[in-house]
């Protein structure tokens, strides 16, 4: 197990390094759009280039970038002169940026995982009945309707027309309801579908037959044997779900005007603020790698069969 973990951690570190490199050179490929404003004089442009270290050869820039990255220094934002990218991302003063996105993501995760598991279990235990069919239909709708459609519709209906809930921000509990729900629908549906399928599969498993022939109560079989085993595939999907939450935050943050990382990312791309794009990309990538790594290790811990095999 330890060897497996060490190998995975090393692979993850290499992945992050390659990601940082690929992003750097990809963004260097972009035609020179920086300070392309014709009103800027050649002299001023040269000064700006020198200020951001863009006058050096690309490879030297790369080394500087790597050294800074190792010190968690992402340089200065181009669209917001004088602001360090690291402070923009962490922003302890206003609580925007990373803290804001993490709260949103955690709220959605905490809401959607138990909800999805519960609905999937309910559906699987009532297989073929009306409740099951209704839940299958609902989860299909939840998977197919894009999150930005759900978000725009619910802002319009619950926020603007009915006036029940605020449509911007993410600080008070009331403000948190709509963004969290909009972000959670898709993960809930995905988890519920998976949970249902894997629960139905346990129905014919040998250990369930044994438990039945021992004369165990149905409730005990369901909780102790079926649900516990059916949870395994759900754990593996938590990695991709975290990734999709990340993508969802882009939409939800821009619709609800929440100043989180997704919002910054979209802004930085339209502002062509490459330093910020680079920093956020590396951050998102690292986050995904760490999430997948955690899920893999968790999976090894939960399922002894995997631990023993490796």
């Amino acid at each position, binding site marked *: 197990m330890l060897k497996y973990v060490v190998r995975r951690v090393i692979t993850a570190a290499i992945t992050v390094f390659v990601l940082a490199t690929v992003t750097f050179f990809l963004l260097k490929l972009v035609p020179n759009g920086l300070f392309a404003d014709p009103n800027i004089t050649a002299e001023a442009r040269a000064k700006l280039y020198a200020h951001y270290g863009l006058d050096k050869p690309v490879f030297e820039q790369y080394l500087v970038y790597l050294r800074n990255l190792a010190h968690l220094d992402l340089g200065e934002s181009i669209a917001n002169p004088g602001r360090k990218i690291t402070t923009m991302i962490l922003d302890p003063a206003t609580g925007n940026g990373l803290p804001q996105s993490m709260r949103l993501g955690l709220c959605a995760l905490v809401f959607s995982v138990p909800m999805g598991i519960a609905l999937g279990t309910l559906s699987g235990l009532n297989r073929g009945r009306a409740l099951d069919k209704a839940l299958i239909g609902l989860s299909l709708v939840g998977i197919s309707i894009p999150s930005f459609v759900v978000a*725009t519709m619910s802002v319009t209906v619950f926020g603007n027309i009915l006036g029940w809930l605020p449509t911007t921000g993410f600080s008070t509990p009331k403000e948190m309801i709509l963004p969290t729900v909009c972000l959670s629908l898709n993960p809930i549906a995905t988890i519920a579908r998976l949970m249902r399928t894997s629960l139905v599969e346990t129905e014919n498993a040998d250990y369930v037959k044994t438990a039945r022939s021992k004369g165990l109560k149905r409730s005990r079989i369901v909780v102790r044997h079926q649900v516990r085993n059916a949870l395994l595939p759900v754990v593996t999907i938590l990695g991709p779900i975290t990734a999709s939450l990340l993508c969802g935050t882009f939409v939800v943050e821009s619709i609800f005007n929440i100043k989180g990382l997704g919002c910054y990312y979209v802004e930085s791309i339209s502002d062509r603020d490459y330093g910020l794009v680079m920093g956020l990309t590396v951050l998102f990538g690292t986050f995904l790698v760490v999430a997948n790594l955690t899920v893999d290790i968790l999976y090894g811990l939960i399922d002894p069969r995997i631990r023993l095999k490796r």
Partner: protein
Amino acid sequence: MQTQKDGLDELFRPEPCAEAERMDALPQVSYAADVVKRFLNTPSVIVFSVILAIIIACCVLVPILSPRPITGIIDEAINHKPSAEYWLGADKFGHDFFTKMWKGGQTSFKVGFFAAVLQTLIGVVVGAISGYAGGRIDQFIMRVVDVFISIPYMVIVLVVRLIMGSSSYTIIFALVVTGWLNTARLVRGQILQLKNEDYVLAAQSMGVSPATVLFRHLIPNTLGVVIVSFTLAVPQAMFSEAFLSFIGMGSGEVSWGSLIRTGMEVRFRHPWQLIAPSAVLALTMLCIQLLGDSLRDALDPKLRK
């Protein structure tokens, strides 16, 4: 002796059984025919295929047949209310919204279909080679896939957009670059399972070249998985296109995503311009997703009766 035997026959007369219960009474059905039959026997499949067919037909036909132009600025129709002439009203350019909506659908379908086809093709070939070759080649390809999978596709879209300019081909290219990874992983897993089968060994020992083994014996056997992943890739690509257009990073062409974006801005005065494209996008995604699900069930040999 004779009578005794007759008596035995009396005693051991076979139990009469219904025709359907006898194994040999079942007609021989090929796998493909069975899949088609089970797929078409699901009532919802028929309903959703018809809906999807209508949507596609509208996307193709309405922009051609519509008498109302959707280019330039038509002064007399600006912000026209829905009427017999303008079914869903007209937008701020005076374009008939009904026509424009189906024009937008063309972009969505074009991106969804081509991106899904290309990424499936690349994914199948790379995944199959990786799985069949094994060893160092496999290790290398899988590490590349691991790295690429953690690059957010927005970065690729951004770079490709800035280099190639914004058009729907840019979006297709960017989606293919990031989309083939999952198919490759899936196909590789399948090949790893299949390559130890006896028929592969038989072909190999007969001296069949690796390429032929791969394309004649292995890839056709992964087709079920590939078809399912294709049907899931289409709505995924359509969603990505709509999402990119929605946040203003799309192709610059009219699409459902860009219409929803502008609809969001005018949602109080012209709610139809938000509701109509949202509804038709959601319905399309629902249809494709459901058909993909049913197809997966039909292809699943475990559910074969």
